[in-house]
């Protein structure tokens, strides 16, 4: 009887407990300003993305590997992204080349700043 009461109490309390723990804090989408005017071929490395200036405009490629989420690096000499965890490779546009990732890298929306002296990169929530 005592044991049953114990388990019943645990079962009843588990609902408010998991509801509390599972609640996600609201994190709004972020805007990151790059106050730098890049020429075609130039790029800027940020913790979450690499911003490339191409002839068609700026492109922000995510640095999160699509395999298991490691932060990937851009190798300037080879013009590729390389994941240091399992060696997945991607082109500078984020296209998958080889390795266990199998999916392309995510790209973020970019828009020019009002004064024309840089761009704003929109990072999702």
């Amino acid at each position: 009887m005592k044991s049953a009461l114990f388990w019943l109490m645990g079962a009843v309390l588990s609902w408010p407990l998991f509801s509390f723990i599972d609640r996600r804090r609201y994190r709004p989408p972020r805007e990151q300003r790059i106050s730098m005017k890049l020429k075609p071929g130039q790029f800027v490395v940020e913790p979450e993305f690499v911003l490339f200036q191409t002839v068609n405009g700026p492109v922000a490629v995510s640095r999160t590997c699509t395999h298991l989420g490691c932060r990937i690096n851009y190798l300037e000499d080879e013009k590729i992204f390389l994941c240091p965890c399992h060696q997945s490779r991607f082109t500078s546009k984020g296209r998958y080349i080889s390795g266990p990732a199998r999916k392309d890298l995510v790209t973020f929306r970019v828009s020019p700043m009002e004064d024309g002296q840089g761009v704003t990169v929109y990072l999702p929530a």
Partner: protein
Amino acid sequence: MKSITYGQLGTVCLLLSIITGFVVGYQYEVASPFVSTTAIEATLPFGWFWRSLHFWTSQAFVLLLVLHIVDAWNGIKSRNVQRQAKIHWTLISLSIPLAVFALFSGYVLRFDGTGQAAGAIAEHLLLAIPLAGNGLNRLFMAISTEGLNRLYLVHILAGAACWLAGTWYHTKTVRVNSVVFCAATVFFCLFCLFIRAPIDLPQGHLHLIHGPWFFLGIQELLRNFDPLAVGIVFPAVPVVTVAILPWVKKREIKIAYLVLLLWTFAYSVVTLEGILRSG
């Protein structure tokens, strides 16, 4: 004095690890994990010493726990154990993943290059578990959404749970010989004077990150196999096998030994491959 057992040494290491963990925790900031860890390591008085002591005693605890379990099994395998003792064995063997998780989360909490990568991989592995993955991630990790808050909490809880499992549940009392405790403390203090706990830069590895030593094999396997199979199921094989050992019939015990032997051999080979990998 009675002969020193792995269990006794493991208890001492766990105690030292918990004490030094509290000391390091006074200056650790979960909001700026890498900066505070480097501050502990490089600028705070004796920070490197306390951090090294915490790191090495934790490593020693996990190794001694495994040796203790092997030793304990050798002691009881030939005897007829009661049902209650079998349940006890099964429950206490679950302290292996608990201890490994405490050790692993310590790597992540320093949040250098290795720690960040280990945290990201672990979170993805948890999420790969069907149905329960998201809930487990919310309970134990959630680094991408909550930062290191939850992992830090779970790191402390895992250490406390190891202590409770090993003392309150397992032996009912704390069996720490003062001479053994002092000798181990002196040994680790001297050890830490010469060998510091590792730390690297968050962006220190362009081509290759070597994960924690016990994770290298899984890291290797993840190159070619499904994350759920090699990141969750495969590491669970020895834990489950050890947990069910007392329940296995005498004539089938060789199969369990074979599973453990093959697993250890296979994991050693892939770990060696990970150690030798250069890019």
